[in-house]
């Protein structure tokens, strides 16, 4: 019965070990998830977690959690995080550092940019199989759109639409050319 399953259930899984990475980019970082598929007990808790590492000057693509709230806890370094709501308002645009917590509500779009140093974080998700949908990159929603829909949605040429769609080949993590961080610094100056 269920009691037997619980008693002998596996209760622990390490997500710091780089060898467990689900997404890995040697230049940009890695992302490791633990959910009810990899740790079945989580289906009872209906929770999951993930560990992210972003190297300096790298970006985690803009994305949203489709089926969960996400509580982000920074374990090392600092990064600039922007969170946008359904009105297109940036409800958070800040540099978040070690020891701080940020809550990303379900469906709110979020982007992380490790500008000057490595950034490591853990997220706790309110779904045992939390899913990410990205806005840019190879598995993004934009990539799933027909070129014509993009061209007409954004009033751009088909060529531009194709660039928007295919220019970014990475799935989740990629290095930045440093353009925006310069922009950030200049602005600050």
């Amino acid at each position: 019965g269920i009691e037997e399953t619980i008693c002998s259930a596996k209760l622990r899984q390490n997500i710091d070990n780089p060898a467990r990475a689900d997404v890995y980019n040697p230049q940009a970082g890695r992302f490791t998830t633990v959910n009810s598929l990899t740790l079945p007990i989580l289906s009872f808790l209906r929770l999951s977690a993930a560990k992210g590492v972003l190297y300096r000057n790298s970006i985690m693509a803009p994305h949203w959690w489709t089926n969960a709230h996400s509580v982000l806890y920074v374990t090392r370094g600092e990064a600039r995080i922007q969170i946008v709501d359904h009105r297109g308002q940036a409800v958070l645009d800040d540099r978040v550092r070690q020891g701080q917590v940020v809550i990303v509500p379900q469906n709110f779009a979020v982007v992380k940019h490790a500008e000057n140093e490595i950034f490591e974080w853990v997220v706790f998700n309110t779904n045992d199989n939390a899913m990410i949908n990205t806005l840019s990159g190879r598995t993004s929603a934009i990539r799933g759109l027909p070129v014509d829909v993009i061209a007409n949605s954004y009033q751009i040429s088909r060529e531009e639409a194709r660039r928007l769609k295919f220019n970014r080949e990475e799935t989740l993590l990629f290095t930045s050319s440093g353009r925006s961080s310069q922009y950030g610094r200049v602005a600050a100056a």
Partner: protein
Amino acid sequence: QRYQQQQGQCQLNRLNPMEPTVRIQAEAGVTELWDKNNQQFQCAGVSLIRHVIQSRGMLLPSYLNTPLLAYVERGRGFFGIMNSGCPETFQSSQQFQQGERGAGSRFQDRHQKIGQFKQGDIIAFPAGAAHWAYNEGNEELVLVCFEDSGNSANQLDQNSRRFFIAGNPQQGEQQQGQQGGARSFQKEQFQSGNVFRGFELELLAEAFGVSTETARKLQGQEDQRGHIVNIDQGLRVVRPPFSQEQEEREERQEQGQYGPRAN
């Protein structure tokens, strides 16, 4: 988790039929909203909207925090749903391109699956999955959309929030109906910017590997069209040549197979 469990007892001792109370006009169509503030909707934990899309009109891509069922009251067209991580299985091939020669342009694309719909269809849109719809018929397309904010897939509050990933929905013109009017939350979905608006321009350009000019287009600040846009030249996507007669024949065959059944 229905509303009455969270807020105490629903006041349902008197029910009444309801009309939409707000109209949001856009370039190629209008969206009508029923007042979600109404006790009956509050209690059921649902909301209802109706899109009326002109011929060659496209509802811009957006996603919701609630699952959605759309009923095709009138018209026909096709739609796309971007399911997280699904491959782009609709791809244009060489022959297809041959056909394009007359157009004088190389049109090659691959994208996620495209579905077709016609009057009477029900289409299910999962929570959090970006989707769009296009009216390819000659008459108006009417989609009645049921948003279930009481559904367990919604982890936010009782308000369904539509996140546009394109356009400038706030350009829609809003007209208020007689009764009270929908709560500002509902109208807000169609009266604010798309999610790219909130990101810093440089970071956005960086994320897509494009120029800041193109990134600016993503944000759609200058877009005056609202959330339903007109596509003069018609929308070209990769999809099976599904004709209406073929569908009807298939349906007839299915009925033939099973024959009338006594209930």
